[in-house]
């Protein structure tokens, strides 16, 4: 795996993770979390761990996202506005 591909995938993971935390629409946040898993799966594959990549793709990207979406389906879709900015800004 060339270094640039590794850095690119890691950067995509970080960006997706920030989106997953920041988005107020929880359904979109689940998609962001799924993207983290998907890029992690690609990274595992390039790092010559195809078995881990398969588990990550099946559980991280498909099943956990489904469980989160079922939970959102029963509760609320949007995060409340009262919380304001993230905890790392607040203090």
């Amino acid at each position, binding site marked *: 795996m060339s270094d640039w591909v590794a850095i690119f995938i890691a950067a995509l993971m970080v960006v997706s993770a920030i989106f997953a935390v920041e988005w107020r629409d929880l359904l979109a946040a689940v998609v962001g979390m799924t993207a983290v898993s998907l890029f992690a799966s690609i990274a595992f594959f390039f790092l010559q761990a195809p078995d881990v990549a*398969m588990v990550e793709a*099946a559980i991280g990207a498909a099943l956990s996202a489904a469980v989160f979406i079922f939970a959102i389906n029963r509760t609320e879709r949007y995060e409340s506005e009262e919380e304001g900015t993230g905890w790392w800004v607040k203090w």
Partner: protein
Amino acid sequence: MVKRIFAIVFILIIGFWMAKALDQVPFGQDRMLVGKYYLEHVKEETGAVNAVTAVVVNYRGFDTLGEVTVLFIASTGVAALLWRKKRKRTAKTEGSVVLTTGARLLLPFIMLFGVYIFIHGHLTPGGGFPGGATIATAFLFLYLAFTVYEVDHKIFEPLEGLAGVGYVTVGLIGLAIGGYFLFDWIWQTWGIGKENIGRLLSAGFIPIIYTLIGIKVGTELTGIVDNMIKEPEEGGQ
């Protein structure tokens, strides 16, 4: 405020000492004696070509039994938390044409791929956990595509239990024959498949245990999905 600063200083101290300790370990170099032993002896001791599954099922089989137990407890916990007497599926909109057609066309292949992964665990990358998870995604696909679909609980729950009991039974037979729990009796005592290493019928009990783990993981994850997607009927507890 003071608490947070205290926490950050504490974390920095711990991180410093962790970095200091790990600094001495030569990563990427050939220092792991246990790993070297596994790689050199894996073929004649277990018969598996894939060293990872040999470590997971054969050398560290008891840990894997613990993992399966953790998954079983998680699945049982979800079922216990969401338990109601009468529950059914309440999805209102049918799946779109793309989803239903895709489900009909792709399902056999996803199932086949999952079964392939766990049966060939000792030859190719993968094993019981990836295979079971793949089968569970196939059932998730069915749940998403068809609004009235539900797995057959009369088959699924006994299958899950039988797979778990089968794992322990294989281990206990090993205890009876070889003297310790999860002794590889098929490979070391009977010597079945000694001449065809690298083919399907080799590697002792690894394919058997991985088939059981695959069935167990698949049914358990499907059970979690089933429990999450169904809702109690109106008014009834």
